[in-house]
């Protein structure tokens, strides 16, 4: 087992269960990637030190070094490889990972815009830096023309640019250009009080507030050695499953609408509103920002409120099952969903697709089952996996996961353990490093966190699985017609803010 030697050499990293860190040399940097790929592991994220933050990771002791990091998901947990790069020279380079993990390409380009550190890969077009016009890859041939869409889209969604090369209505190629809502979140983290960083983490992608703030707190609590009360851990799972259920319900409505069935949107948007109002009654907010806080939860639930919330969850899930029957029997809807935007398993695996989109293409990873963290260590979660890879498969995964989240919510809410809602927290020591990993509704959400002096953040890197899944959308649309793009795009429903940072 080639992975074994890396795993044995690696040092434990606090936060996510089983996480390890490994300092590597230039040759080893690529070998680790090859071995992870060969053993069926996944590429999770890549980031570098920022030029002025002097971060140090699990393996380097000297602040002021620059380094590039890569997080992989293996059977045993997260493995973080760190390659230290000498500061001398104008722009340090490191071996690119694109050939082994195609999803690394855009992360490397984004990291280059942020820090000046470049990979050796051939695509060096800026990603976050929009100062110059973007050089799209052109498709030549008789009758080929381009359709440029965005950054401001026709609906109420986030901004990004899509460049379609089409013949007639058929899409030959799609290239997305993102980065329009780049705010500089990673740099903003530097120097923030580390006990307040969860607020910014929650706003990396507002639809995944619980996932990001939990991953942040998981890393931080590991670094501080804080034991989160069992009650708080269960309440966090309540929030995470509510976030999953609310997003899936909203998507199921929007997918019906994009298939020309406005009834679906009317019904599911009503159900989502019912859910948000119940969440607001229970937690004092419709969206669960600033509720997962370092040490535990900002709000506790009384058993009466928990019961009322459970009643709404039960009603929403029951109606969703009824509506699933209507979707399944509607020939127009079935016709639009089936075979649209197909991403077959081998291609999904080659692209390293993660989360919900991966599970709809036969890649059955779910952190709640594979690398469970409390309280999922003591809960059974049924994975929702489909083989089709088309819009219909992504719809089916959403229906299955919504039902499973509903079941988990009823279980969690009926048996909340007694105890405190939060434990006291101290700032971790300067240089402490931790990683948080949570299965959000889109897929694995990772936060790598390092403490600076006097309770500050030295470096924080949040990662959304949309990084992996955006390039897959470009493949899924090939050969489909332009009018199916909104439907196919919605079936992926990827984050813009979550990757633009």
């Amino acid at each position, binding site marked *: 087992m080639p992975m074994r030697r890396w795993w044995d050499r690696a040092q434990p990293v606090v936060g996510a269960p089983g996480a390890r860190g490994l300092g590597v040399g230039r040759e080893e940097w690529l070998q680790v990637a090859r071995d992870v790929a060969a053993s069926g592991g996944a590429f999770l994220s890549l980031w570098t030190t920022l030029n002025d933050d002097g971060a140090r990771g699990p393996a380097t002791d000297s602040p002021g070094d620059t380094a590039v990091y890569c997080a992989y998901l293996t059977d045993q947990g997260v493995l973080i490889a760190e390659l230290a790069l000498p500061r001398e020279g104008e722009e340090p380079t490191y071996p690119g990972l694109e050939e082994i993990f195609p999803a690394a390409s855009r992360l490397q380009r984004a990291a280059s815009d942020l820090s000046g550190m470049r990979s050796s890969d051939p695509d060096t077009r800026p990603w976050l830096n929009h100062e110059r016009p973007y050089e799209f890859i052109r498709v030549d041939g008789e009758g080929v023309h381009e359709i440029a869409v965005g950054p401001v889209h026709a609906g109420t969604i*986030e901004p990004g640019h899509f460049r379609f090369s089409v013949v007639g209505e058929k899409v030959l190629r799609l290239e997305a250009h993102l980065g329009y*809502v780049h*705010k*500089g979140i990673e740099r903003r983290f530097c120097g923030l009080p580390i006990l307040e960083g969860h607020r*910014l983490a929650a706003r990396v992608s507002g639809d995944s507030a619980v996932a990001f703030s939990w991953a942040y707190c998981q890393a931080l609590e590991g670094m501080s050695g804080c034991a989160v009360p069992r009650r708080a851990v269960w309440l966090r799972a309540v929030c995470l499953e509510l976030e999953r259920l609310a997003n899936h319900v909203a998507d199921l409505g929007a997918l019906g609408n994009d298939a020309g069935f406005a009834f679906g949107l009317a019904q599911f948007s*009503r159900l*989502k509103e019912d859910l948000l109002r119940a969440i607001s009654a229970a937690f004092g907010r419709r969206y669960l*920002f600033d509720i997962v806080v370092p040490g535990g939860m900002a709000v506790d639930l009384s058993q009466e409120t928990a019961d009322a919330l459970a009643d709404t969850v039960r009603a929403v899930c029951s109606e969703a099952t009824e509506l699933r029957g209507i979707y399944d029997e509607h020939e127009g809807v079935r016709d639009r969903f089936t075979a649209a935007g197909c991403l077959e398993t081998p291609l999904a695996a080659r692209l390293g697709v993660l989360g919900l989109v991966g599970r709809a293409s036969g890649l059955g990873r779910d952190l709640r089952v594979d690398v469970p963290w409390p309280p999922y260590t003591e809960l059974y979660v049924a994975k929702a996996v489909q083989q089709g890879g088309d819009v219909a498969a992504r719809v089916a995964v959403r229906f299955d996961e919504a039902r499973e989240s509903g079941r988990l919510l009823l279980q969690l809410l009926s048996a909340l353990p007694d105890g405190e809602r939060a434990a006291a927290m101290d700032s971790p020591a300067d240089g402490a490093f931790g990683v948080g990993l949570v299965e959000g509704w889109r897929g694995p959400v990772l936060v790598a966190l390092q403490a600076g002096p006097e309770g500050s953040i030295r470096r924080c890197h949040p990662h959304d699985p949309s990084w992996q899944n955006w390039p897959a959308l470009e493949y899924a649309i090939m050969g489909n017609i332009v009018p199916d793009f909104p439907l196919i795009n919605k079936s992926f429903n990827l984050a813009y803010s979550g990757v633009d940072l």
Partner: protein
Amino acid sequence: MLKTLRKIASIGLVSEAAPQTDAVLRVRSALDERITSVLGRALCIRHVDAGSCNGCELEIQALGNPYYNLEGRNLRFVASPRHADLLLVTGPVVRNMEAALKRVYAATPDPKLVVAVGDCGCTGGILGECPAALGRVSSVIPVDVAVPGCPPSPVRILQGILTAISATA
């Protein structure tokens, strides 16, 4: 088909009464009477995300659900700024969206209204402190009404829109 119809009939009408306008949300009132006289009671809205985390977008989308029933109040989201009377702008404006926001504003025919949505749109908020953000919406285009909140509820956003188009509030 029968199941669909039965479902529609069993749910019935769930739309709620519109909220009152709120003068507190108003930032400026230069164009009011002219606009209301031109528009009557119908209004077309163009949403622009200028750098939001996507939280405000979710609450704007909720305006279309049957409870708030935006279209039932003669308010409608449109696909192009050229069709719009009012821009609903979220987020701190970020560097990479500044040009797009200015172009959307220029493409919107006069007389036009702008409602800034969310803490980030109103003041810059927590994301407005990021290095690639320029801050509040009014630092880039003129704003008539500002609706704070993180994110503001659909009722609050609807109040902001109604305040913008009422001559008196």
